[in-house]
């Protein structure tokens, strides 16, 4: 777990961007579109969302339906087979996919919002505030997700939002470090000095100047957080500290199928393939965005 939350640190790399202005949006989009793999991944990811929600709505079985077919291998009636009690495994995987995507997006949102506010405040005010907030980040980084999830399980009854909140808040500490770094370097630049000289309030400077200028790292970071969110959620659920039965998540499905690798392999492989698909497409999107935002990479390319 720690390991996977730790991945956020790797996002540190993206912190080393130079400042961009909004007018460059077009350039960035063009650059992104040039990255074919990233575009394909974006399409895949959107398709996955459509399949998860639309597919589940259209599919003849709901994830709670109990069919008369127990432990059937994949067939036309049940493309992903069925489990022991007769749940259609496709319906279950789609439900798991919904939950996992929902949690992952929420993780990215929570971690980005909290982490940005946190890091920007620390970086902008510096000194005492910075020190205090960064030590707070140290505190949060040490907190074990498993213990927090177990402690809050009784409160939130393991709802998807509780899980997203826990992963999101814990991940936000790492995000705050990244954003703080970016803001620290921005703070000393002329246009901030100018804004200050013009009498802009601290809040205004943070909201109007600092945050927009950290957009690059922010977006890339948020993308990677989606992948981190997926992997963290499935890992937590696999260990029994995440989404709880009778609800479904991809990690939980794999947990339940751990003993079935040989006997009912469809139960084990199908949720796993979907986790990989999501995380893979997200990572490629992140890669494309990184290239799009980072002019140095482009230079190397030419």
């Amino acid at each position, binding site marked *: 777990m720690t390991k996977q939350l730790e991945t956020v640190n790797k996002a540190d790399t993206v912190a080393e961007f130079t400042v961009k202005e909004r007018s460059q949006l077009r350039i960035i989009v063009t650059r992104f579109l040039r990255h074919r793999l990233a575009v394909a991944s974006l399409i895949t990811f959107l398709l996955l969302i459509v399949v998860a929600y639309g597919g589940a709505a259209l599919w003849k079985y709901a994830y*709670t339906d*109990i069919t008369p077919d*127990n*432990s059937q291998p994949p067939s036309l009636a049940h493309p992903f087979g069925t489990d*022991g*009690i*007769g749940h259609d495994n496709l319906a279950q995987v789609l439900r798991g996919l919904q939950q996992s995507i929902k949690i992952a997006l929420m993780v990215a949102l929570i971690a980005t919002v909290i982490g940005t506010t946190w890091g920007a405040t620390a970086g902008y005010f510096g000194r005492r505030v910075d020190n205090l907030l960064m030590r707070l980040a140290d505190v949060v980084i040490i907190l074990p997700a498993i213990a927090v999830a177990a402690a809050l*399980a*009784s409160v939130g*009854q393991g709802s998807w939002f509780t899980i997203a909140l826990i992963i999101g808040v814990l991940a936000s500490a790492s995000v705050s470090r990244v954003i703080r770094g970016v803001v620290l370097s921005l703070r000393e630049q002329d246009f901030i000095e100018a804004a200050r000289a013009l009498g802009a309030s601290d809040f205004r400077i943070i909201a109007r100047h600092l945050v927009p200028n950290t957009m690059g790292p922010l977006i890339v970071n948020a993308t990677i957080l989606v992948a981190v969110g997926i992997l963290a959620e499935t890992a937590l659920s696999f260990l*029994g500290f995440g989404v*709880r*039965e*009778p609800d479904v998540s991809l990690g939980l499905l794999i947990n*339940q199928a*751990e*003993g*079935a690798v*040989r*006997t*009912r392999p469809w139960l084990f492989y199908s949720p796993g393939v979907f986790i990989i698909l999501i995380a893979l497409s997200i990572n490629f999107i992140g890669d494309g965005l990184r290239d799009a935002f980072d002019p140095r990479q482009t230079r190397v390319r030419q």
Partner: protein
Amino acid sequence: MHMHLRRRGVIGLAVLTSITLALTACAGSGGKDEGPESSIGFADCGTNPNACNNGKIKQGGTITYALGKDVKAWNTLSSAGNTLEYSHALFGVVPRVHVYYPDLSVQVNKDMMESVEITAKEPMTVTYKIRKEAVWNDGTPISADDFIYAWKTQNGKDCKDCKAANTSGFTQLASVTGSDGGKTVTAVFTQAFPDWQQLFSPIYPAHIAAQHGTLGESFLWLEQNVPTYTGGPYKIEKYEPNFALTLVPNEKYYGTKPTMQKVIYRIITKDSELIPAMRNREINAFSPIPTPDLVAQAKQIEDAHWYLGKNLSWEHFDFNLKNPFLADKALRLAMFTAIDRKAIIDKTVGQYAPETKPFGNHNFVPQMKAYKDHVTPTGQGSGDLEKAKKILTDAGYKIEGGKLITPKGETVPTLRMRYTTGNQLRKDSCELFASMVKNLGIQIEIVQTDNLGGTLSSGDFDVMIFAWVNSPLRIGGAKQLWRSDSSSNYGKWVNTESDKLLDEAARTVGDDAKAFDLINKANELMVADAYVLPLFQREMFLVVNKQYTNIRPNPSNHGPVYNVGTWGLLEAAN
């Protein structure tokens, strides 16, 4: 006396029964259709449970048996040590007066005891005669002192700081005295205690305890220290925490010497790891709670015998009568009638244990003579929807727009059904329960619990699924579970008539037939009230490499290790 408390497990129940010493083995289930499933080595375990899988033994050999938990305490009489796995690990080391055999008979440990007899009825007196040869491995005789130590540490009076797991029986003992140089022990009871055979199993060496301070201190010392002492066929050679416990023969053993060189309990805490480890020959035997995948894969292991039979635990749906809606018998009866137990079995355990039948008694299992199916004749668990609806309409209920309306015009609210986190079988059973009572217009919300005991005792449920584990000693247990004021009567069913019958049974020593009859009468009252619906017996599952003999399934909580001292390596047929 020991409980399982695995996360996925069952609440164990240690209940007792008085069976006179002239024990007739309650033979296995008998009926052809009841036969458990097995492979060839265990083929006759259904008909010959106490002697199946035996063959010519070759001296020597080692066996690695998977143990589901690391041993966290060595005194199985203390609250910390009162765990099924710990007592299994110590079966060959700390001796017992009585042993539960696979046919569910309770037999005296003849290696250690010469005789055990009830010598007086008023007051109830039991005389234990210990064999002259019986000694601890340091040469000290096993004696009355050890019995007295067991009594004093567990009677709640003599030792205020002993954390005894269970004081029942010992609190009813007026005195325990030794005579004949300590080889005869006389135990006098203040009141009849039909389940007396649970006492002194096991006993710990008093002379070693005496070297470690007061009763309380030594009781704790026994908890914390790996035994170097032994009064059984094996002694502990090595204990590696979270890893393995290695036993070697006790060269001072006074009974039949074991033939194996080593018995290793390999600690494997995750059942899903058992099959790979077995296939990879990292373990030679294991006995987990079965799942469809475990069973299917065990059958494919070519060099192993497997046995799938019924054990003493049984799953059941419980109502909480404190819920004002569920306080109405008609509603309960209709819901239980709408439950199709056969369908639940087919969807769950039936897939790997096709012999499973709906279970019909709250105190006895079909392997016991006293078993009678009280439930099926009432129509509960039949899935007869028409009958269920009729019960409701007769009582003035109405089903409107998928909702159930009480005679008073209230809508029956969504009921909360709880089960233990991670227990797939119970989760599935809950979903099936919900889909079945939906036909009556009743909505069920399924909520898991991490704290089964807390949830039960606080009554934080409307419907609950869990399991009780019976013991071959079965008279006091009925009272413990079902008496109106018992703490284990979680759904709060109150019936003074039944209480009287149970009390009388608990006073009956030496007349099993009568006691069983009283318990069955009380049970009929409870069944008629639709309080707890028994579903099915759980399975015992044992997988053993074919090169071992004398290791066999045992449905009681003494488990396959009950005869660990006689396990052996099979002489290969030439």
